[in-house]
């Protein structure tokens, strides 16, 4: 009986020795290799910009201009258009993102350039607008005096101005 207990004790001690040895061996081995980490967080900003929402109108002696700006489209409507009147309205292009933008294009449509002159000042292609900043432009609309009897005179028409912006370093001249 005593011999049997001794035998168990021997096995137990041997198992303990093996456990210690393997554990220490593992610890030793583990420091033979080391892991290094480079962890990165890349936060992407936002590119966002366009026309500030706005509506308004102005009258002159039986003729008037009204406008509505939203997104990247400005619609300017002239009612009872008259010769010798220069209709104007202002608009604002705002950078609402966190990355600078540039005005990539300004498009004008809706009227015949042979009958109606439309031009813009204050804002032009390539203008850069920093984040949080804005730029104010003015649209001018007037009937051309030629031909003598301009078919658009007395008419109501709508000029559409489209402005697009891009991330500043992706601007294509």
């Amino acid at each position: 009986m005593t011999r049997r207990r001794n035998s168990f004790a021997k096995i137990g001690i041997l198992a303990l020795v093996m456990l210690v040895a393997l554990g220490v061996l593992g610890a030793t081995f583990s420091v033979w290799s080391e892991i290094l980490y480079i962890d990165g967080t890349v936060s992407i900003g936002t590119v966002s910009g366009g026309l500030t929402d706005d509506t308004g109108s102005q009258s002159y002696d039986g003729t008037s201009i009204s406008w509505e700006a939203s997104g990247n489209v400005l619609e300017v409507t002239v009612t009872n258009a008259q010769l010798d009147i220069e209709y104007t309205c202002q608009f604002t292009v705002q950078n609402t993102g966190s990355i600078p933008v540039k005005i990539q294009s300004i498009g004008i449509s809706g009227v015949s350039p042979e009958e109606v002159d439309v031009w813009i000042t204050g804002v032009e292609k390539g203008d850069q607008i920093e984040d949080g900043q804005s730029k104010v432009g003015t649209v001018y609309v007037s009937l051309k005096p030629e031909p003598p009897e301009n078919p658009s005179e007395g008419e109501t028409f709508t000029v559409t101005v489209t402005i697009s912006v891009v991330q500043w370093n992706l601007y294509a001249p």
Partner: protein
Amino acid sequence: MVKLISRSNGSKLKFHFTRWGIIALAVVLALGSVGVTYAKWKGKVPRHNDVVYTYYFNDPFTWVVSNDDGTPDTVSPYGVIDPGDNGDDPSEPQSQGVTCARYGKDVASTDALLNVGFDPRHITVTVSNAYPCYYPTIFFGMKNCAHVAAQIESIVVDENFTGEYDTTADDIDALDVTYGGIYVGQVIGSGTEVIGNLHIHVEQPAKENWTYKIRVKIIVKAECQCGGTPGYWHNWKQHYTAGEINGWLTAIDVASGGVGSGWLVSDMAEPYGTIDTADLDAILAAGVGGGATAESRFLRHYLATRLNAQAEPPTLYLGDTHDITSISGYEYLGLSNPASAKLSEIIAAIESKYGTSLTDNQYNIMKNICDALNNCRI
């Protein structure tokens, strides 16, 4: 020990002796292993930016620099790492010490921190307000502070790291993360620091107002192949076949230009026969003992150096640089850049001394250099 636990019964006495013997053995084994662990681990993390790291690691990052934090950073002894860092955003990857193209604006920024949580094995990079085409670079130092050479076992880039259990190395369209200066298989000698870099390129598909997480995992292991010493090569039969050894000796012979044109070739193959393991044994044996000449002692170490570089896998690399200025009399070799001399240059300088009349001191200088190389001390 036996007397202290003696019993009247002889068999019991034997049992107790065995048990205590086993316990003693376990203690010795444990202490020995701890000693090995400590020997492997001991290394002091150098001081940088007025921070002294008190933890000891084998291969820690030693410094980190971002090239878009608005300040050119100087790291001794390299000088300015990221010249031109005025905060304007980099538009191309930067090389160490060379300016790079930048946009004329400071829109995004990149910060890199070392030792977050007092662990210099961890660099944290934070890129803010990035946009497509933004291209910052991170430079970092990685030093082998252990007493044996280390080797980079793997470098894994995960461009979409989702958490500690993420083991997949994702390659996403939104980012292009690349590294340089370090490579898999690179051996970093004891005390040697390497400079790595990490380029982060934001690509067009990057989502606005989005955060990407990346992880670069570098595994460095102790270079267990570091045989190196004359004693190691004296026991070459335990590591290599005679065919392997003879092949390497022949390659050294060819590289040295043949019989009569270099140290080892002429001295090993007496009388100018085929160089083989017998010559190896002879020259290693001749370089020890009281009767050994300075020349034979030098040749013993030099032969080990050449074999270390020639063996497959090598434990010394011809293209790796070594600083021999800690060896007294190093000027004798006449190296143009002794603080960073390639092994191939050191060997060439030693070979250039062949055929000249050398003093014992000059032999000893070359011996000491080879000895330091073989033991990864330089």
